[in-house]
């Protein structure tokens, strides 16, 4: 076979003149078109934003809505049921938002830890030798995945309120734990007169004295988030383990690794590569879903913003605070998980 003829050497036709160089400033120039399109897009966007801003300004003036961030320094005037840091109704709004933020983080961090543990257990048991365990895990995942998280939160809350004993006669659990409508109380460190020290809860009327008490609202949000997210994490873990080729396990067995060694040295490092990115998404989802706490009155940051909005009418500012909080948490979580992902990701030349 001959090599293809090079241009210009075609027999029988005289060499053509090269086409004239394109002039830069014509509509056929893709670069120019690109710039025009981008300029148009930006102009339209700027016009839209300007129009919306003007509308907002006129509307706010017409309705007498104040704007600005000065309200953060005013007295909040409402009480918060759960406060990791001290808060009185005479404290300013910014401190209320801080309490809300801490409450969000409190439920999100514990939720992430617990849902990871349950999710891994469920995902691994999909590969169990035991058919009952496999079936149970499958049934769990399908049930909890297909019902909205909000319905689950509300259901947990009603179940806790219905099922728990009255606050005056709490259920005594081993290890100094108590459970009643006032919440779950257990021994914890407390900052008292003599600094931080271990303290045991004691039932006192309608509440507990000492230790740490988790309210039914907190427990309902936590249970809802954990059991819902665990179903998704189970699927992520299952997918990750299923992605490890069968031959890897057989190879590990053939060189005499034990079952635990196979899991630790062969399956896990390869499965984690597949697991970590979607796991990050689940953590972000859990954090964002914690905003649903507003539906059952757990004072998270959305709930505080909602109350503040109703009291002050500063809709733009309150929604901006909520969005900023979640954007920051989301970006921080993804940065952290991306760092971990880089560690477990495949190392190639």
């Amino acid at each position: 076979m001959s090599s293809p003829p090079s241009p210009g050497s075609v027999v029988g036709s005289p060499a053509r003149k090269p086409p004239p160089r394109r002039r830069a400033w014509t509509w056929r120039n893709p670069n120019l078109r690109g710039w025009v399109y981008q300029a148009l897009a930006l102009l339209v966007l700027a016009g839209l934003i300007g129009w919306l801003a003007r509308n907002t300004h006129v509307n706010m003036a017409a309705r007498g809505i104040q704007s600005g961030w000065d309200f953060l320094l005013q007295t909040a005037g409402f009480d918060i049921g759960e406060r990791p840091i001290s808060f009185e109704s005479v404290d300013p709004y910014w401190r209320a938002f801080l309490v809300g933020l801490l409450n969000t983080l409190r439920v999100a961090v514990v939720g992430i830890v617990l849902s990871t543990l349950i999710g891994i257990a469920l995902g691994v048991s999909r590969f169990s030798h035991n058919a009952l365990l496999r079936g149970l895990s499958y049934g769990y995942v399908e049930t909890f995945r297909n019902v909205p998280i909000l319905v689950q939160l509300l259901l947990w809350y009603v179940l806790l309120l219905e099922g728990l004993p009255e606050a005056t006669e709490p259920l005594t659990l081993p290890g100094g734990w108590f459970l009643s409508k006032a919440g779950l109380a257990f021994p914890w460190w407390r900052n008292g007169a003599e600094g931080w020290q271990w303290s045991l809860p004691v039932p006192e009327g309608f509440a507990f004295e000492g230790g740490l008490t988790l309210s039914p609202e907190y427990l309902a949000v936590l249970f809802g988030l954990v059991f819902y997210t665990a179903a998704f994490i189970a699927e992520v873990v299952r997918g990750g383990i299923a992605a490890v080729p069968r031959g890897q396990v057989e190879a590990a067995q053939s060189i005499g690794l034990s079952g635990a060694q196979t899991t630790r040295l062969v399956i896990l490092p390869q499965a984690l590569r597949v697991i970590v990115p979607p796991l990050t998404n689940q953590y972000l989802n859990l954090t964002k879903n914690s905003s649903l706490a507003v539906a059952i009155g757990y004072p998270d940051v959305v709930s505080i913003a909602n109350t503040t909005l109703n009291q002050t009418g500063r809709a733009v500012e309150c929604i901006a605070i909520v969005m900023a909080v979640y954007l920051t948490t989301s970006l921080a979580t993804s940065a952290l998980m991306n760092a971990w992902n880089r560690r477990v990701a495949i190392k190639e030349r």
Partner: protein
Amino acid sequence: MAAVFDPIIAKPAPARRSNAWRWARRHLFGNPASTLTTLALLALAVWLLPQALSWAFTHAVWRADEPACQAARGSGACWGAVTEKHRLIVLGRYPFEAQWRPIAATLLLFALLMVSCVRACWHWWLLPAWIAGLAVFFVLMGGGVFGLARVRTDQWGGLPLTVMLATFSIALAFPISIAVALGRRSRLPAISSLCVIYVELIRGVPLISVLFMASFMFPLLLPPGTSPDVLLRVLVGITLFAAAYMAEIVRAGLQSVPRGQIEAAAAVGLSPWQTQRLVVLPQALAAVVPSLMNNFISIFKDTSLITIVSLYELTGSLGLALNGDPLWRPYKIEGYLFISIIYFGICFAMSRYSLWVEAQLARGNRR
């Protein structure tokens, strides 16, 4: 002496030795740990199942009989609360005498959805059928023409509202998401960064904050004097939210189309738009059908959040039905279980359907 070929008679195939006992020995009592697990789970079932069954069935009260429910409290479920309130739960505050309208409208929407799910019906006439069907849906729900009494959107509720919001936001978000996904891959820096900002901003915040924005901020953003319907505002909010998530899925699909496909399209003389429409998008979308279906399921579940901005879809109308009535208020557990079953049924059907579509699309690769 010539050897006579004397074939050995073939052995019969081994009998299929699988029966219930063998299966159980292998899958339930395969090793000591497995046996222990089986016994523990069986013990748990023996302890819990009778209690659950007696609560849900044998001791349950099915009639709308409040004193009987009160008597059975703690030992049996009061499904009577659901029996009594089922119309309010499923249809919300829609005027009682006109409730055949949302039922007919929802059945129509379900029929359209089911027809669209069958492969034999994937034809061009689906589009006009949908447009006509949606027009009929709105006429039935809203009224105001053909002698149907006018029903304002704040009276719409229950399952019709849930199904409508999910269908509409998916249908509207889909074209937006394709545009954003293409924009994000554009080589024009201004266009792609705008798309990145939109997607990352929306994906970084919870849906509830978008809904708060739709309900509190949209009225401020629009020209003075115009006050769009709250349902419309919420629909816009959910659509914008869903589009950002779908755009990322579509983008993943676009990335999976090999570069050679675009070059081949250019070689046969297709324009850039034709290339996207005829070559890239069909392959990109087919590649992400499972993720898209998962996303549709989560949008359907997410419609439950609009109850927080005071629209009474299925979750909200349950609260409306039971919180508003001191007699039936204590039986919320039964109510939540009832709507959980409805949500589960629809979502589970969607996920099974997604498996089927996946298998259909994979047929081409198997050959």
